[in-house]
């Protein structure tokens, strides 16, 4: 009956998207009149009982050193075993890099219907229907999950991580058979000190209007002040002005931060597709006819090279930095 939430970690730290997944799973458990149980694979540095504040009462942990390396095949087998041990009927993942790799496998393993990229709690009044993002953010679809066991992957930033309890979660060590992995991890390269784009609350993004890579200093300064991640339009990544992983849009990363600041980006339909789920959009563009203004909440028609430095000064004042 219960709802099982996969708690994803990186270097022993629970990912923000997983806190959202826990909050979602906990709300869903209330809706289904059952319990929300978390699942952690491998070892973590974090205070697991404290995750109880997001609504999980229990956390199952399979603390096998082999699980400190991610392998979708091995993880699937372990999660399937735990699902069966605790008799979970709904399994919730974050729709992030790991969720996207495990959930489809688990769907086959358990013959459980999967909806990926959910944006709201299921409607359980008549069957089990989940709303997901489709057409790269341009529409939603309501998907019925027809099996008794179901898997949901939750889009990042579409359900807030909310503190709903003050009871700590009990951590239960859990036994499972861990298969040998067919994948050897050779290296992990992390961009140090930067906010990962997929997890960022604020994103400052630059387009071809910035003329060249040498002009990104002000974008980085603005991002740093706001604790934001940096992003860019496709031609900017294609011209190697910025790294590929910063490319957002229909054929890049789709993001949904609280605040998206687009500077010197025209707002082509393919770009909008990846960013239009952002809660607030600010556009700075010198062309009043730029299509981006139609999708924006706030805008400044002006030259980025004049506007952005002034904006930086104003934000410094707000934040009280010299």
């Amino acid at each position, binding site marked *: 009956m219960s709802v099982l939430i996969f708690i994803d970690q990186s270097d022993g730290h629970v990912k923000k998207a997983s806190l959202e997944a826990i909050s979602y799973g906990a709300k869903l458990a209330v809706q289904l009149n059952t319990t929300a149980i978390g699942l952690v694979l491998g070892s973590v540095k974090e205070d697991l009982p404290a995750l109880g504040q997001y609504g999980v009462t229990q956390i199952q942990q399979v603390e096998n050193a082999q699980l400190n390396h991610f392998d979708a095949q091995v993880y699937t087998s372990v999660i399937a075993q735990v699902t069966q041990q605790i008799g979970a009927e709904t399994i919730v993942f974050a729709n*992030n890099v790991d969720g996207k790799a495990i959930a489809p*496998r688990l769907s086959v393993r358990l013959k459980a219907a999967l909806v990926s990229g959910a944006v709201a709690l299921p409607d359980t009044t008549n069957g089990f229907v989940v709303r997901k993002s489709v057409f790269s953010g341009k*529409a939603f679809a309501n998907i019925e999950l*027809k*099996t008794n066991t179901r898997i949901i992957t939750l889009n990042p930033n579409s359900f807030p991580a909310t503190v709903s309890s003050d009871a700590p979660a009990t951590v239960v060590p859990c036994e499972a058979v861990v298969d040998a992995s067919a994948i050897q991890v050779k290296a992990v*390269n992390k961009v140090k000190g930067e906010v990962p*784009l997929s997890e960022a609350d604020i994103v400052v993004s630059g387009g071809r209007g910035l003329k060249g890579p040498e002009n990104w200093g002000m974008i980085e300064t603005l991002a740093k002040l706001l604790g934001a991640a940096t992003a860019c339009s496709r031609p900017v990544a294609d011209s190697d002005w910025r790294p590929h*992983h910063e490319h957002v849009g229909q054929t890049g990363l789709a993001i949904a931060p609280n605040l998206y600041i687009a500077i010197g980006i025209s707002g082509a*339909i393919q770009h909008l597709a990846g960013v*239009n789920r952002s809660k607030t959009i600010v556009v700075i563009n010198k062309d009043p006819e730029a299509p981006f203004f139609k999708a924006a909440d706030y805008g400044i028609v002006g030259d980025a090279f004049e506007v952005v430095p002034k904006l930086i000064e104003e934000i410094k004042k707000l934040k009280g930095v010299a």
Partner: protein
Amino acid sequence: MKVLVCISKSPDTTTKIAFSDNNTTFATAGVQWIINPYDEWYALVKAIELKEKDPATVIHLITVGMSDAEPVIRKALALGGDEAFRVNADSKDSFYIASQISEIARQGSYDLIFTGKETIDYNGSSVGGMVAEMLNLPYVALATHFELSGNTSTVTREIEGGEEIVEVNGAVVVSCQKGMAEARIPNMRGIMAARTKPLKVVEPTDAETLTTVINFELPPAKGGVKLVPADNPAELVRLLHEEAKVI
């Protein structure tokens, strides 16, 4: 080396999204169909690059779709690939599609199976992982780089805030995204050659669907932009702080 590349048709990226029949059907009138960009730019082109390095490589393409998917699979053949399969069935849901692809993959015993990271219409990101599980193969999702040496694949995959490099021996399923390869356009020779490349139409195997699309919705329209004069960024900061409460 045998590579199977999964190809989906998807609406052109400029398509205006609209629905008919009481919002139950995607309105396809006037829609231009393209090869799903992730399948084309990254999965297919990567396979072609492998063949350019080792001409003994055989590339098969597969799509699950009705006859209206043929122009798209022909276009894929014009870019590269030796032959194609079209499983003659509606692409009902990810589980159904993956069941069809796995069936063909079992018969062909492929060393590598490439998919795009997702389709730009359903955004499921599921078919690759499902195929991998059905075939009991390892799966590397969201790959940005791929290198083959003997039967060892070295794959770079995206992780939050960075990348991870992994090695896999033997057959593997990989979902491909930006970084894997550079987009190409088909040339005249490719287009001519595609006409005579085998395109085998096969009937679907019995498979279930686990999901049904009930209906679609369009997001609510935006309220309109609030413009702030260029010489007054302080006002923008105030609005973001006090009104939108985002900074």
